[in-house]
């Protein structure tokens, strides 16, 4: 009861500013901004050849607009190749090329008129860590890394729920995000309607100079479901920390820049699935010409792991050519060495384009 009283107290304290625009209206501004990203892929793998050849890696269709004077809405619809179901082949069904599935990656509403805090409700990607909330077209590499895939699955951790985010009073950027989400992700939970997953994230950023920033974040996820009827008690806990340096000189900043980003995540599950494993990802991106950059990444999954858990090393190099901010051609080579599978070597070429009103990417 006490939290509810305090939330009411909190809301009454904020000055809700929902005044009508007093300046000129720009015609078609009531239409949502519509943007579309398409990722075309050519891939050649040594072991898992299912995705080899030319393919449409995905399409992301984004709509965003103010709802009214109080709320803003964002909807991201993803179109991705369907994952092959083995039982179809067993049943002798004839395949007619790859099918595609359409699903809402995000569909949420957030407040715009409350001073100091943003409340969000709907389906959204969790802010846990540095890269889970980044859509595929904006990921630093062509694919999500082995650590992200192990922790959150192919599509990342996005679910339906609510969140609140606000600044901590300080002399630098320090933001807390708290989320309460439906436990819908098979890599994290045994799905249940009787419990809620909670995520908390603290994100800090310091300007070390006009050219250099340091970002440090810590994240936690907690989920517990008590035993009922014949169902076991389930629990999942995740902790994560990320550290990112970004450098872009104030002069000639269009010609050179660099990023060094490292993220650690540890996951522990108890109940129907028992697992305990941690992974670290670190990459460097260096822009050496206005339109060219190179990247290198190493990942290790298997830190403090339980006995039967997967362990793997993945190394990736990438060369990117960016004709404009709306198109990019990226060539990537991966080597993945795992204790469970044969070593994988894969080369991929991606053409990533953006049309329409594409919103700015977060820093």
């Amino acid at each position, binding site marked *: 009861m006490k939290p509810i009283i305090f939330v009411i107290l909190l809301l009454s304290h904020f000055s809700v500013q929902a005044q009508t625009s007093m300046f000129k209206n720009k015609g078609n501004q009531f239409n949502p901004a519509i943007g579309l990203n398409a990722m075309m892929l050519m891939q050649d793998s040594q072991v898992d050849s299912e995705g080899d050849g030319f393919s449409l890696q995905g399409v992301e269709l984004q709509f965003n607009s103010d709802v009214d004077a109080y709320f803003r809405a964002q909807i991201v619809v993803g179109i991705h190749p369907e994952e092959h179901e083995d039982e179809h082949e067993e049943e002798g069904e004839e395949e007619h090329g790859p099918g595609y599935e359409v699903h809402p990656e995000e569909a949420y509403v957030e407040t715009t008129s409350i001073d100091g*805090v943003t409340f969000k409700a709907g389906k959204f990607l969790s802010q846990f860590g540095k890269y889970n909330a980044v859509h595929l077209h904006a990921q630093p590499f062509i694919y999500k890394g082995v650590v992200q895939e192990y922790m959150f699955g192919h599509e990342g951790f996005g679910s339906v729920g609510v969140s609140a985010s606000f600044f901590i009073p300080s002399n630098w950027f320090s933001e807390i995000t708290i989320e309460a989400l439906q436990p819908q992700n098979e890599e994290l939970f045994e799905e249940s309607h009787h419990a809620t997953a909670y995520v908390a994230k603290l994100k800090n950023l310091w300007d070390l100079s006009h050219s250099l920033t340091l970002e440090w974040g810590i994240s936690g996820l907690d989920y517990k479901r008590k035993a009922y009827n014949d169902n076991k008690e389930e629990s999942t806990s995740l902790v994560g920390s990320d550290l990112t340096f970004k450098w872009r000189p104030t002069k000639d900043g269009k010609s050179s820049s660099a990023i060094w980003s490292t993220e650690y995540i540890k996951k522990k599950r108890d109940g129907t699935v028992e697992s305990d494993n941690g992974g670290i990802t670190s990459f460097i991106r260096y822009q050496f010409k206005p339109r060219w950059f190179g990247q290198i990444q190493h990942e290790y999954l298997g830190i403090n792991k339980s006995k039967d858990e997967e362990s793997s090393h993945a190394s990736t190099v990438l060369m990117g050519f960016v004709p404009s901010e709306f198109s990019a051609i990226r060539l990537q080579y991966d080597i993945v060495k795992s204790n469970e599978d044969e070593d994988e070597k894969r080369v991929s070429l991606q053409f990533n384009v953006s049309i329409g009103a594409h919103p700015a990417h977060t820093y």
Partner: protein
Amino acid sequence: MIKLLILVSLISFKAHAKLQVITTTTNLASLAKYIAGDHVEVKSLCLGVQDPHFLEAKPSYIFKLSKADLLISVGAGLEVGWLPLIIQGSRNPKIREGQMRHLVASDFVELLEARPVDISRSQGDVHPEGNPHFMLAPSQSIKVGKAIMDRLVLIDVKNQSTYENNFLTFKNQILEKAKLWKHIKDKKIKVVSYHKTLSYFYEEFGIQNVDVLEPKPGIPPSASHIIGLIHRMKKENVKKIIVENYFDETVAKRIQREIPGIIIEIVPVAVEGSKSVDDLFDLYNYLIKKIGA
């Protein structure tokens, strides 16, 4: 939990000794400082040496905007790649676009090169609303200065007379300078520029910008474009290439090898874009000296 909520409730309590004004560019910051005087603390997000088209949405900018009492932006699509995200992240509803405490300067000037129809991204980084670099014309800065004065009076009426007097002083100084700069028009100067940054300055001083080094806005110069450009420059008897100092001067130097005697002027287009340019008057004087001489 209770402590956390109390903490959140405290963050809306903001006590500043002075009004906090954030501008997107140093040109707007310089103008705001003239009008506001000592009653206001003015900071710019973009540095004078940075291209305001391509700023990144740094969380530290979000932090600055979260405390702002007034945001002054250029508008006309100049900051579209980063400012909306910063405003959204600031959780400061007072400064959202359309609110009284967000002044969009382009709303108060008549924009050149507006192309509201028949445009696509195949034409480069075009601004359908018009050219956003109007602060480089002294006469336009008077219009924006008047808008800033009016807005400061709305926010802080007790200092109305200070803002009005400061604006009048600024306006009179510009008009006095304009008399000294008047003769530039008679020179019929012809230049080639890297980007259409100085269109308003050129129009104000009767300078003809024969062509631009970029084949399209934001697209680097190609060899074929440069060959055509050299031919045109010779034909039009152009004597100067103007390169804004956040662009690469390599292509200008290549042209200089083809047209001996041509002068390359690398100029700041923003306050603090060069060591000797500390305010708008310095900037106008610098541009007059380098381009109008």
